[in-house]
């Protein structure tokens, strides 16, 4: 048997802010993770650069603006997300990081003012600059909020008015207006102070500063806009997938309810229908999307089959996971046989199925609290135990052990060493 491995596409690595345990904004931790260096180095670097001339602060603030938080990429099962949206699960605790844009803005403003002072060496320009910064700050904040509300809005088209003014309201207009007035008065102040022709260089410099300011004002906004657009598109695709799945599930629930009504007098059938429907819903709401071909996935399939066929509960617990290849399929088959025996013969309503994947082996335990039997007296014609379990495991280099007593029921222990096939 040959294994064809398609050339796997390397996923694009994107730097994100680490929002797990941020000291300020999680920039250093995120950067360290991205570059693969200890976080202490990055933090020390920022600190040294901040002390020597303040560029560390500027750099940090800039990164804070452009790096998305890693929570943006977190995806949870729809049921969890919906519970979180409706406030039925604990949400994120508000931290310093949430006021990130404001803090970054202040740091940037201070940096700009100090830089200006260092260049021009006097205090005249500063007040004009401070006013301009305030104005741009207000405009920028407005853009940020507009973008946020548009993000939450489900309409698909991009509306320019909406992009600037958000959902409208007097506060939005006042903010945009005030920002505009402040910028204009900063320019006016500058012109009044230096109203002579000889100051044309100063005006040029101030114009250049204005352009830089505009860049700072609009840059992050445009950057975020592009990011959000991509995120939005991905979200839309996901939503559609989920809607399809939900429709499918609702349909199956309806079918099950209809069947239950028809079989209302037949308790075991009703229980079986209810159980299989419950499993479907639970898997959809609370479990990560099934990744096909893994040991846990294969065992879930076994559980589903046995629960449906024999009407017993199979409690499955898996620790670790691994892709199932031909070396591991014997243990899945043996587990299926053992669980089937337990469901068929033990007369116990619950069967426990436990699988553990360690680096060097895979173990599966199948346990019931049923009647038990003596493994040595199994008649030779009972193919199940001897052939499907014991021989199969030995043939593939593993072991199988059956412990059974009338008081405690039966436990089948399977273990199979793992080959070097895994990378």
């Amino acid at each position, binding site marked *: 048997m040959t294994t064809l491995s398609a050339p796997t596409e390397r996923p694009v690595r994107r730097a994100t802010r680490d929002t797990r345990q941020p000291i300020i904004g999680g920039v250093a931790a995120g950067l360290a993770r991205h570059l693969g260096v200890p976080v202490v180095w990055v933090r020390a670097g920022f600190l040294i650069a901040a002390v020597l001339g303040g560029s560390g602060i500027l750099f940090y603030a800039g990164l804070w603006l452009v790096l998305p938080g890693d929570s943006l990429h977190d995806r949870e099962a729809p049921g969890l997300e919906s519970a979180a949206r409706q406030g039925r699960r604990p949400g994120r605790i508000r931290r310093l990081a949430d006021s990130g844009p404001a803090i970054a803005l202040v740091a940037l403003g201070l940096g700009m003012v100090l830089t200006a002072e260092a260049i021009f060496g006097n205090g005249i320009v500063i007040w004009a600059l401070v006013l301009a910064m305030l104005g741009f700050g207000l405009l920028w904040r407005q853009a940020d909020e507009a973008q946020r509300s548009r993000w939450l809005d489900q309409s698909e088209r991009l509306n320019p008015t909406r992009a600037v003014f958000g959902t409208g309201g007097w506060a939005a207009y006042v903010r945009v207006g005030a920002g505009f007035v402040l910028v204009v008065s900063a320019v006016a102040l500058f012109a009044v102070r230096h109203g002579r022709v000889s100051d044309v260089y100063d005006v040029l410099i101030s114009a250049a500063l204005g352009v830089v300011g505009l860049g700072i004002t609009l840059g992050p906004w445009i950057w975020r806009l592009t990011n959000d657009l991509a995120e939005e598109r991905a979200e839309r695709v996901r939503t559609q997938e989920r809607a399809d799945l939900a429709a499918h599930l609702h349909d199956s629930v309806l079918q099950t309810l209809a069947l239950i009504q028809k079989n209302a007098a037949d308790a075991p059938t009703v229980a079986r229908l209810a159980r299989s429907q419950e499993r479907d819903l639970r898997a959809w709401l609370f479990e990560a999307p099934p990744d096909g071909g893994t040991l846990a996935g294969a065992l879930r399939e076994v559980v589903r089959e046995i629960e449906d066929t024999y009407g017993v509960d199979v409690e499955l*617990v898996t620790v670790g996971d691994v892709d199932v290849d031909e070396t591991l399929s014997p243990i899945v088959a043996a587990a299926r046989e053992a669980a089937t025996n337990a469901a068929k013969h033990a007369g116990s309503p619950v069967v426990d199925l436990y699988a553990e994947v360690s680096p060097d082996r895979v173990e599966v335990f199948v346990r019931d609290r049923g009647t038990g039997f003596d493994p040595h007296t199994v008649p030779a014609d009972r193919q199940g135990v001897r052939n499907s379990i014991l021989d199969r495991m030995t043939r593939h280099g593993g072991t199988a052990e059956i412990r059974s007593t009338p008081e405690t029921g039966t436990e089948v222990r399977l273990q199979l060493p793992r080959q070097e096939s895994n990378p």
Partner: protein
Amino acid sequence: MSHPIRVLIVDDHAMFRAGVRAELGSAVDVVAEAADVDEAVAAIAEHHPDVVLLDVHLPGGGGAEVMRRMPPTVVADGPRFLALSVSDAAEDVIGTIRAGARGYVTKTITGPELVDAIRRVSENDAVFSPRLAGFVLDAFAGTIEISAVDEDLDRLTEREREVMRLIARGYAYKEVARELFISIKTVETHMSSVLRKLQLSSRHELTRWASDRRLL
């Protein structure tokens, strides 16, 4: 026990509250019911239950929020929390235990098992369902980062691991004790110790493991 255990049922589905109440019957004393976080906090202050059966998904911030809102003075001899949820998603299980619950069982648990779990929790023991034991093993699996802050809290002893594995395999406490040739009391001690580690460990894996797991 001189008096029946006083229990508060917190769940936002009235039908489920009624079901649990009926299932518990006279084995425990159900003193009150609550449907959201605020009601639960108020009911705890008013009735001083021994055990709070806490739904994990609850309007007002979830079951964890109820535990977070307990005043510190109450925590020492206040109610014990047993989480009861239809979700067995890892994020919910680990999150609830770390918020202070002494156990986690799913809503499909049978009546007698639930009564038994309530009794254990009221005696300050830990209650681990097989699923929770599996999560614990998963979360504490693998190598430990050298920089781990508190090594004792970040790893299970060999014995604790054995106990967890047996619980995950569906063994009851006394079967675990018999299998390992130790007393039930010792099993309970191990369980409490694991619970403490689960709550206090600073292992990165415990908070992020659930989502990282898919990347394995």
